[in-house]
C-alpha cells in the first residue's frame, strides 16, 4: 500500500505546483519533468509496486485520492478559475466513466458522448428555469432523459456492428446539434442560461464565507462533483468485478461465442448503453449548472471525439486511466497558453500516437483479478 500512497502524494504535490505556476517556461519545464520522471520510474521498475498496491488496496487509495483532491481544492480555495478547471476535470471523468461502460466493457461504439452530455445539460437548464424540482433530483432526471433519448438509438445500435454502428452514433451527434440549433424552444444557437443550484437555502452560486476566509462558490460544485465521481467510480469498479462485468467482457471479446454460451447479447448491450448514457447525462446536468450556460455549439461531434480521446489515452476499460487522462487533456492546454489554439490538433496526434504505439493507453486495464489480494 505504501508505494501507492507515495505515488499519490507526489502526484498531488505535482498537480498543485502545475496549477499554481504561471510562467510558461516553468510550466514547460514541469511537464518535461513529469514525462522524464514517469519514464524513469518505468524503466527502473518502480511502477510495478505502485500498480500492485493499487490493485490490492484500491479502497483505501480511493479515499486517499478524494482527500488529495480536497487538499488541492483547499490550496486554491479562492481562485475561481482553477476550481472551475478542477470541476471540469472531475465531471469529464464521470462522463468518460460512462463512456467506459459502453466502449470499454461492452464494446458498444458511442461517438455521441457529448450529445448525451448536452442532453443532461439542457434538461437541467429547462427544469431549473421552469419548475421547482429540487436540484439533486434534476441531476437524476438529466441522466434519465439522456438514457431515454439513447434508447431511441437502441434498435439501430443493436442491429449494427463495427463501422455501421459508428455511423449510427455519428449521425445522431450531427442530428442533435442541428436540431438544437434550429429549435427556438430550446434557445436555438443562442443557448440557454442555467440557474445555479440551491439546496435547502444554501445557494450554490454564492461565495462561501468562513470567518475571514472567502471560498469561491465553485467549491460547492466541487464537493458535489467529487461526491458524484466517488459514486460513479465505485459503481464502475463494482460493475466490472461483478458477474455483470464478466458478461459484458465476454460480449465484447467475442459476440458469437458469448451467445453460444447462452448470454443474452441484446439485454447486456442495452444495459451497458443505457447505464453509460445515464452517467454521462448526470455529469452533463451538473456541468450545465456549473457553467451556467448551455448552447448547441458546446456539444458537437468534435467534443464527442474529445471524450473518446480521453478514454483511449487513459486506457480503454481503465477507470484510473480515465482520471489521469482527463486531467492531462483538460489541464495542460489551459496552462500552456501557447498550445491552446493547437489543442485539437495535439489531441488528435496524441491519440494517433497512442493507437500506433501503445494501444492499451497510459494505464492499461489490468488482467481480471478474480480474488483480490490472492497470492499463489
Amino acid at each position: 500500500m505504501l508505494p501507492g500512497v507515495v505515488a499519490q502524494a507526489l502526484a498531488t504535490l505535482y498537480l498543485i505546483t502545475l496549477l499554481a505556476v504561471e510562467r510558461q517556461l516553468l510550466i514547460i519545464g514541469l511537464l518535461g519533468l513529469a514525462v522524464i520522471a514517469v519514464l524513469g520510474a518505468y524503466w527502473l521498475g518502480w511502477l510495478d509496486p505502485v500498480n500492485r498496491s493499487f490493485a490490492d488496496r484500491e479502497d483505501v487509495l480511493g479515499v486517499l485520492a478524494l482527500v488529495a483532491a480536497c487538499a488541492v481544492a483547499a490550496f486554491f480555495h479562492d481562485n475561481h478559475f482553477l476550481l472551475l478547471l478542477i470541476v471540469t476535470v472531475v465531471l469529464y471523468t464521470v462522463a468518460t466513466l460512462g463512456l467506459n461502460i459502453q466502449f470499454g466493457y461492452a464494446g458498444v461504439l458511442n461517438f455521441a458522448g457529448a450529445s448525451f452530455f448536452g442532453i443532461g445539460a439542457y434538461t437541467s437548464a429547462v427544469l431549473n428555469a421552469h419548475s421547482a424540482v429540487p436540484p439533486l433530483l434534476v441531476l437524476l432526471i438529466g441522466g434519465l432523459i439522456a438514457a431515454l433519448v439513447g434508447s431511441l438509438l437502441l434498435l439501430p445500435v443493436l442491429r449494427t456492428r463495427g463501422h455501421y454502428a459508428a455511423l449510427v452514433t455519428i449521425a445522431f451527434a450531427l442530428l442533435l446539434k442541428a436540431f438544437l440549433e434550429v429549435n427556438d424552444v430550446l434557445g436555438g444557437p443562442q443557448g440557454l442560461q442555467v440557474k445555479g443550484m440551491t439546496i435547502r437555502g444554501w445557494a450554490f452560486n454564492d461565495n462561501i464565507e468562513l470567518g475571514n476566509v472567502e471560498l469561491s462558490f465553485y467549491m460547492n460544485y466541487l464537493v458535489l462533483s467529487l461526491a458524484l465521481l466517488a459514486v460513479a467510480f465505485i459503481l464502475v469498479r463494482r460493475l466490472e468485478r461483478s458477474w455483470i462485468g464478466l458478461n459484458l467482457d465476454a460480449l465484447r471479446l467475442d459476440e458469437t461465442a458469448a451467445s453460444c454460451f447462452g448470454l443474452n447479447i441484446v439485454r447486456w448491450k442495452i444495459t451497458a448503453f443505457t447505464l453509460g448514457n445515464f452517467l454521462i447525462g448526470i455529469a452533463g446536468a451538473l456541468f450545465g449548472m456549473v457553467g451556467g450556460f448551455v448552447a448547441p455549439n458546446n456539444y458537437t461531434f468534435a467534443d464527442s471525439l474529445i471524450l473518446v480521446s480521453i478514454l483511449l489515452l487513459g486506457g480503454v476499460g481503465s477507470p484510473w486511466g480515465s482520471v489521469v487522462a482527463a486531467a492531462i487533456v483538460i489541464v495542460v492546454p489551459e496552462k500552456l497558453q501557447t498550445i491552446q489554439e493547437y489543442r485539437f490538433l495535439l489531441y488528435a496526434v496524441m491519440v494517433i500516437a497512442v493507437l500506433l504505439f501503445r494501444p492499451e493507453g497510459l494505464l492499461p486495464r489490468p488482467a481480471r483479478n478474480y480474488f483480490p489480494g490472492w497470492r499463489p
Partner: protein
Amino acid sequence: MDIGLLAQHVMNGLMVGMMYALVAVGFTLFFGVLDVIQFAHGDVLTVGAFTALVTFLGVRAAGVGSGPILLSAMVVVSIFAVAALGMLIARYLVLPLRTAPALNTLLITLMLGTVLRESVRLFYPQGANPKPFPALLPTNSINIGNFNLRLDNTIMLAAGVMVIIGVELLLNRTKLGLAIRAVAQDEETARTMGINFLAIVLVAFAIGSGLAAFAGIMNGFYYNEVNFGMGLYLGVIGFAAAIIGGLGSIYGAILGGFLFAALQTVGTVALPFGSAYKDVFAFAVIIIFMAWRPTGLIQEKISERV
C-alpha cells in the same frame, strides 16, 4: 407548386447529390479494396479544395491571367497532390494496421481527419475564416420562368457525370480495374494470381482521393467559397450515402449519394420550416434506415471467422 420552382429545387439537389456521390464512391472503393473505412476522406476533400485555391493564387501571382489555364492548373495540381496524400495515408497509416482490430483503424482515420482539418485551420493564413473561391466558369444563365439555368452548374454536372462514367469504365473495362475488383473480392487469391497487392491498394486510394479533390473543387465553384470545416459534413454524408447504397458497390454509392440529396430536397420542400430541418430529417431517416437494413440497400457479403 410552380414547375419552375420545382425544377430549381431538383437542379440544386442534383448538384449536391453529385458531390455526395463522388465522396461516397471514394469510401466504397477504399472499403472494397482494404475492408477499411477511411474517415479522413472528407477532410482530404478539404485539403483538395485548399490546394486548388493555393494553386490558383500562386499561378495568378506568377502572372498568368487566362481562365482556362488557371482552371486546368487548379484541377490537375489538386487532383495529383491529393492522390499522393491518399497514397501516403494508405501506405503509412492504413496498411500497417490491417492486422489490428478494425476499431483501431476507424479511430486512427477519424483522428487523422481532425489532424488534417485543424492543420488547414491553423497553418493556412487566417484559416478559420471562409475563403472566397474564384469563379472561373462562365456565369451566363437562362431564365425559364422561375427556373434559372446556369452554365457553370451545367458544366459541373456534366463534368461530374463524365468522371463517374470514367471511373466506371476504368473499373469494368480495363485490366487495372479488373485487378482492383479482384483484390476487393479476394485478396489472397488475387496475390496468388500475381497481382501486386501494394500497388493496387495505392492506386485505389489514389483514385478515391482524386475523386474527393474533384468534389472539393466542385464544391468550391458551387458556393464560391471554401472553409476548413467543409469536409467533415461532406465526409459523414458521403459515408452515410456509401452505407445506404451498400459498401463495396460503386453503383450503390452513387445511388446513395443522390438518394441523400433527394432526402434533403424533399425535407426542404415538404417541411414547413424548410431548409432549417433538412439535416435533422435526412439524418433521422438514415438512423431509421440503419435499424431496418443494417448493411445497406445492396447487401455487403460478410463472412466472419468464429
